[in-house]
């Protein structure tokens, strides 16, 4: 068991969950008092001992599900696989009739889901996988493929329609709640199907390979430019809690960054209670400084998603800066600060794409032209107290860089930072003219992931 645990801990570490030696020992202690027959108790116990951050819990659960996969016992497999086997009387009412036609199957699944009976649902899921997934031994296809295939063939959309239509006329509020319930139930069923597929794949390929194949990166390490739609959605959802956390930390940091000058009066008063001996020395609170930000973001296709994130994050942190003005450009420049007055930042970000007037010529990014336009129209946005933040890959499509215009801009502000969403090894390749601008920046950062973005914003002065 201890060896198994060590292997599991090693696997967690590769999955990006940090586990210390002490936590490993705790987990071993935990195993000694947990009922090992109860898989869920084991999962909870190990998780409490090994994982100390809520955002790692999902990664833990995934790894656990694979590593300590439950093999179906032979007789369980028998009931689902031998179609002609006579059902025992008490299970004949459960929906594991193999002969069911497609539409009957839809009905049975819908019934199982509607009844809320998890055992029936699990059984239906395993039945559906046996029937539709068509898992072929040794074929290197991902679980996602089988999941898609099973869900489509069991006609999940019909199941959904049936579930949604199952109610008589409802008030709008009730309708909404009912919809919510159906969505959750379907998600649950989907999980069952996915779990079933995983189990069968493990039987086929063995644990080690499946664990290796299913390694996914942590949310904050996803490369924003490479992210697929699903990942982008997850990232966007993570932004609000992240910004809240960062705001609290920034405020805290600001309050105690420096002690102010000695407060003579309060020190004297304090010393009265100790017979005039100044035991506690008092300082004045430090003067808070909030940076002023001017953001200039490239919104052309290649880097738009990154710019969107940065704008969302910075505007969510609005209170932590004394002033934020945002501009977007492709080859023309437009101010977008006013869009963020709206209470919903994602709506604001969508409006930027549809309403901002950032194309002046042919719609390919042209940094030189954009800086020239900016200098002509918005020079008043820059002040000696401001920090200028440029977001972009500096790929100017071989247009003139106009580095001296950029130089003039940087002279107007206190600091200039360039955030580049490309990996550092790509800089300066092809039409990237980063180095021409970089000389005028105080610093240039590679900013591909949420983690890097967070670190940059936290360090901003």
């Amino acid at each position, binding site marked *: 068991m201890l060896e198994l645990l060590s292997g599991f801990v090693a696997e967690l570490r590769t999955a990006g969950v940090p586990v210390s030696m002490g936590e490993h020992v705790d987990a*071993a202690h935990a*195993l000694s008092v*947990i009922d090992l027959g109860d898989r869920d108790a084991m999962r909870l116990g190990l998780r*409490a001992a090994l994982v100390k951050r809520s955002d790692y819990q999902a990664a833990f659960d995934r790894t656990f599900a694979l590593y300590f996969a439950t093999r179906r016992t032979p007789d369980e497999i028998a009931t689902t696989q031998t179609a002609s086997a006579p059902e025992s009387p008490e299970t004949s009412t459960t929906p594991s009739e193999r002969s069911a036609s497609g539409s009957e199957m839809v009905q049975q699944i819908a019934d199982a889901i509607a009844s809320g009976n998890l055992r029936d649902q699990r059984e239906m899921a395993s039945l559906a996988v046996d029937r539709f997934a068509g898992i072929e031994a040794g074929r290197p296809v991902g679980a996602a493929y089988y999941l898609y295939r099973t869900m489509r063939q069991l006609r999940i959309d019909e199941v959904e329609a049936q579930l949604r239509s199952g109610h008589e006329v409802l008030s709008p509020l009730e309708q909404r709640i009912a919809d919510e319930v159906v969505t959750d139930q379907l998600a649950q069923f989907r999980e069952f199907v996915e779990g079933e597929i995983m189990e069968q794949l493990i039987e086929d390929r063995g644990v080690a390979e499946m664990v290796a194949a299913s390694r996914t990166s942590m949310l904050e390490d996803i490369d924003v430019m490479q992210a697929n739609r699903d990942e982008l959605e997850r990232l966007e959802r993570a932004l609000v809690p992240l910004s809240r956390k960062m705001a609290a930390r920034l405020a805290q940091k600001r309050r*105690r960054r420096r002690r102010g000058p000695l407060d003579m009066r309060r020190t004297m008063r304090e010393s009265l209670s*100790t017979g005039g001996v100044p035991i506690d020395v008092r300082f004045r609170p430090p003067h808070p400084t909030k940076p002023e930000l001017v953001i200039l973001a490239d919104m052309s296709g290649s880097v738009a998603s990154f710019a969107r994130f940065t704008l969302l994050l910075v505007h969510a942190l609005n209170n932590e800066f004394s002033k934020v003005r945002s501009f977007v450009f492709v080859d023309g420049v437009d101010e977008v600060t006013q869009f963020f007055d709206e209470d919903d930042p994602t709506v604001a970000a969508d409006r930027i794409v549809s309403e901002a007037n950032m194309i002046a010529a042919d719609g390919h990014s042209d940094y030189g032209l954009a800086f020239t336009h900016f200098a002509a129209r918005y020079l008043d946005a820059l002040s000696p107290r401001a920090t200028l933040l440029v977001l972009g890959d500096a790929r100017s499509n071989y247009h003139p860089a106009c580095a001296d215009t950029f130089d003039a801009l940087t002279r107007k502000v206190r600091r200039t930072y360039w955030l580049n969403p490309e990996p550092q090894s790509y800089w300066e390749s092809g039409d990237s003219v980063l180095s021409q601008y970089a000389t005028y920046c105080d610093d240039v950062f590679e900013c591909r992931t949420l983690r890097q973005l967070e670190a940059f914003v936290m360090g901003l002065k």
Partner: protein
Amino acid sequence: MSAVDPRQELAARLGLSDAPRPSFTSPDALVSALAQHDYLASPEIGAITYLADRLAKPVLVEGPAGTGKTALAKAVADATGARLIRLQCYEGLDESKALYEWNYRKQLLRIQAASDDEASWDRLEGDIFSPDFLLTRPLLEAIRSTEPVVLLIDEIDRVELETEALLLEILSEYQVSIPELGTVKATQIPMVFLTSNATRELSEALKRRCLYLFVDYPSVQRERDIILQRVPGITSVLAQHVASVVYALRSMDLKKSPSVSETLDWARTLVILGKEELDDDFVVSTLHILLKHQSDIAKATRELRRTNGA
């Protein structure tokens, strides 16, 4: 698997003659004991609290505000008949408020009252650094207590990163070192709960010493049961309905989702108003009990109305 029981090991380190027995015999026993004190624990809460008791480890309870983190510690204290010692954390909390403080004034008085002769000075010096002149604060109090205690360190994320270090010794060794006196060891094994709203990342050193429990908003069923238990006179139909509405609200993207305590307030209001059923207009008109931001109320109203039109 090693045969050494973690509790016995700790008891040996603390120099206790026999290890205090764990307060609960199984996770299920714990859940039902808490239920008798009006706390409905999910299986996860039950399993991890049991584990903490069994392993004599502190639990770090993290989760959004108003999900019953503090209530868990209170319920455990009630269920075990232990005294609850609570340390409310805030920014600027220091050693003298959390651990102990020498009573300067009393020491000064003692010095002034002493005679001036040289020989008595040594005695005096030993005297003023004795436990009589020590003001115990919650952490030391919990360690010195001879009866069973539950120590609740509330909202640990509010203190500065450096202040967390104060807790490390007590969390891993159940002892407090006072330079002038030596080490004070626990005479029993207290149950320790730390709560955090996750407004900041806690230090690795602290997390390593604790078990981790993430308490999220309850499921609809559990929230319904909580409402039924805590709000007298509510029908189960209405409780179910309340729980579903709150669940729907939480799934919206709001600044501040309604907490369990706000749900209970709302349910109580409904009972006082003699409502048997919820209708849309009524929900909208009492949203301010559940939601505390004007923009959230506007958004929720809009969402509810939008479904109305559909």
